[in-house]
């Protein structure tokens, strides 16, 4: 192919990108060769989605690999530690043969060098979705153990984060709207200091106040010893009572952060012309606030929430540990004390997966919701 042909091809692509009115048939002649590349060139959105998805996969793989190698760097042999515990506590004078140790090492994916272990771990994870057996609850699988404590974490985190987000967004909008009032300034200063406090401090203060001093709420576990799990009124009440303090410690901090973000957003929006117009039309101030000013602040608020998910996840681990709440954070601490590598990997990777997937979905959905955010969509939409 001559140089002139190449130049024509490039021109064709540029024309297609710049001017959507170029006809499809023309594009087919001038566009890049190869079906895949041509499709991508004519469908920038598809190209963006594909590129973003590949990036997502690569990031996921790299993050999982990094945590894998980090965990294998921890000194100590989990199987031997476990057997030593058994010998000291239950089976005096007996010791496990080398064959037993070898068998368990291979079951837990601990034989061979680190790279062989890594290869087998990835194979097992990708092909079978399996993290291997759990040392804490042998022979249950790590993902089974995680799945049984996941509902508690999801319940706690989803409810408290959603509540905090709504609370923070509404209060933040009001604080931004009435930013000259003393109350708004007070709220802002309070949340400014609250947003920097670590969750576990709030948790400790909560326990001290509501559990020790006032005795209103219980300080540990997810439900009382006197109720049996099931769909009964007593159990539901017990769960709510026990979840109150851990949820509050998350709500307070997250709500404070949301409030500050929303307030910031509101203040940037408040100077805009379309609000002046709405005011000039004589609309009621609260209608302007709710229908004109606030909708423009929702998306940045969602973005902020998704970005902070990782931090929320990490803070949740400590909160669960403080309250001995039986979610995956508490499980992670237990697993770490036994060096249950498979469960540790499972919990950490679950966190990584959640954050990455949320960011990925957000990147795809945001341009659809907000026309101002256009990655490659603009060239299509004109």
């Amino acid at each position, binding site marked *: 192919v001559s140089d002139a042909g190449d130049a024509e091809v490039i021109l064709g692509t540029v024309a297609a990108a710049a001017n959507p009115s170029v006809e499809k048939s023309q594009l087919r002649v001038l566009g890049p060769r190869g079906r895949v590349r041509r499709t991508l060139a004519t469908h920038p959105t598809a190209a963006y989605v594909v590129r973003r998805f590949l*990036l997502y996969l*690569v*990031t996921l793989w*790299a*993050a999982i690999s*990094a*945590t894998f190698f*980090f*965990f294998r760097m*921890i*000194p*100590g042999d989990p199987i031997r530690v476990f057997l030593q515990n058994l010998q000291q506590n239950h089976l005096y004078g007996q010791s496990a043969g080398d064959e037993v140790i070898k068998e368990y090492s291979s079951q837990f994916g601990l034989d061979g060098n680190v790279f062989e272990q890594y290869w087998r771990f990835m194979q097992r994870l990708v092909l079978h979705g399996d993290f291997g057996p759990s040392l804490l609850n042998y022979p249950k699988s790590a993902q089974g153990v995680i799945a049984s404590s996941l509902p508690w974490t999801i319940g706690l985190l989803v409810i408290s984060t959603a509540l905090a987000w709504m609370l923070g967004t509404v209060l933040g909008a009001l604080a931004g709207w009435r*930013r000259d009032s003393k109350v708004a*300034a007070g709220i*802002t*200063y309070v949340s*400014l200091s609250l947003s*920097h*406090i*670590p969750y*576990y*401090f709030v948790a*400790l203060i909560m326990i*001290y106040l509501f559990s*020790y001093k006032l005795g209103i709420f219980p300080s540990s576990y997810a439900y009382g010893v006197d109720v049996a799990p099931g769909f009964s009124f007593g159990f539901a009440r017990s769960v709510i009572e026990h979840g109150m303090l851990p949820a509050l410690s998350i709500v307070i901090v997250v709500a404070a952060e949301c409030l500050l973000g929303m*307030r*910031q957003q509101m*203040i*940037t929006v408040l*100077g805009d012309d379309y609000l002046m117009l709405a005011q000039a039309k004589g609309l009621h101030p609260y209608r302007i606030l709710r229908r004109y000013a606030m909708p423009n602040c929702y998306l940045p608020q969602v973005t902020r929430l998704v970005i902070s998910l*990782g931090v929320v*996840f*990490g*803070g949740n*681990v*400590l909160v669960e*540990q*403080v309250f001995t709440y039986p979610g995956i954070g508490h499980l*992670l*601490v237990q697993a*770490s*004390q036994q*060096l249950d590598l498979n469960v*540790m990997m499972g*919990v*950490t990777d679950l*966190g*990584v997966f959640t*954050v*990455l997937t949320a*960011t990925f979905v957000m990147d795809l959905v945001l341009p659809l919701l907000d026309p101002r955010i256009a990655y490659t969509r603009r060239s299509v939409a004109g």
Partner: protein
Amino acid sequence: MTAQEESVAGAPDAPAVAPRRSRGANWRYLRNGKVIGGFSILVLLVALGAMHGLIADWIGDGSDPLEVGFGPRMQLPSSEHWLGTDQVGRDELALVVTGLWTSLQVGAVAGLVSTGIGIVVAFLSGYTGGWVDSLLSAITDIFLVIPTIPLLIAYSAFAKEVHLYQLGIILALFSWAAAARAIRSNVLSLRSRPYVDLARVSKLNNLEIIFRELMPNMLPYLVLGFGLSAIGAIFALVGLEVIGLGPSNVIDLGLLINSAVSSGALSLGVWPMFLAPIVAIALIFVGLSLVTLGLEEFFNPRLRRVAGE
């Protein structure tokens, strides 16, 4: 201060700094009241921490106040023990001062390492551009999503003999990404300023431009990054210790809080055991936050009105 505010109110989107000399640092951020206040608190704390040996000698008067059984157990403040004693009879004031020094050091080490990595990555990526930038940005994104607290818990729970500094460095190794990203965006905007072009035309090499033109202008920004990483590191490690997972071979503020909780000091009414380390941590937090808030206001003039002034 008023002149500054007026100029901001007049033109909210104008750059924070007026046209300035092409070279050298701009020290205006030091005039911010928050920066001055926060910095004085920090200096006071560092001085107090640095003198922990002297204070311990003075309290101990020959014997070691950190020794088990130095005084009677769980005392309330008296003329002999200003902050009382803990559950094994150690002097609380000496403990807090020693713990303060450790916590400050850990924060400083973690903050320095993470800001250092952040600076190197950010300048390499922002200044070089091209595929180096793409690669480093991708790596930064990966480190941004790895949750550090599970890693720390895992490492500290098993490796009991690790030192707090090692944990600080591990924390820094996994938490430099946020700083790198923020600094990179700043480098990108500074790189295209006229005075950098001028430097390039006058044949300064890249290192000279980075160290003599870019760095001085970004100094407050780097301090901001350092402050945020230090706060993050101190709080993460104190958190580990409060829930009883940290190394117990070094006295730091988190360990003191943990021992107050686990020895039941609260229900026994020995308030200094609980309050003293928390106040010390709160002061570190207030000092660092004031400095970072002040610097943020310097960079983002909009915040000046937002902070309710």
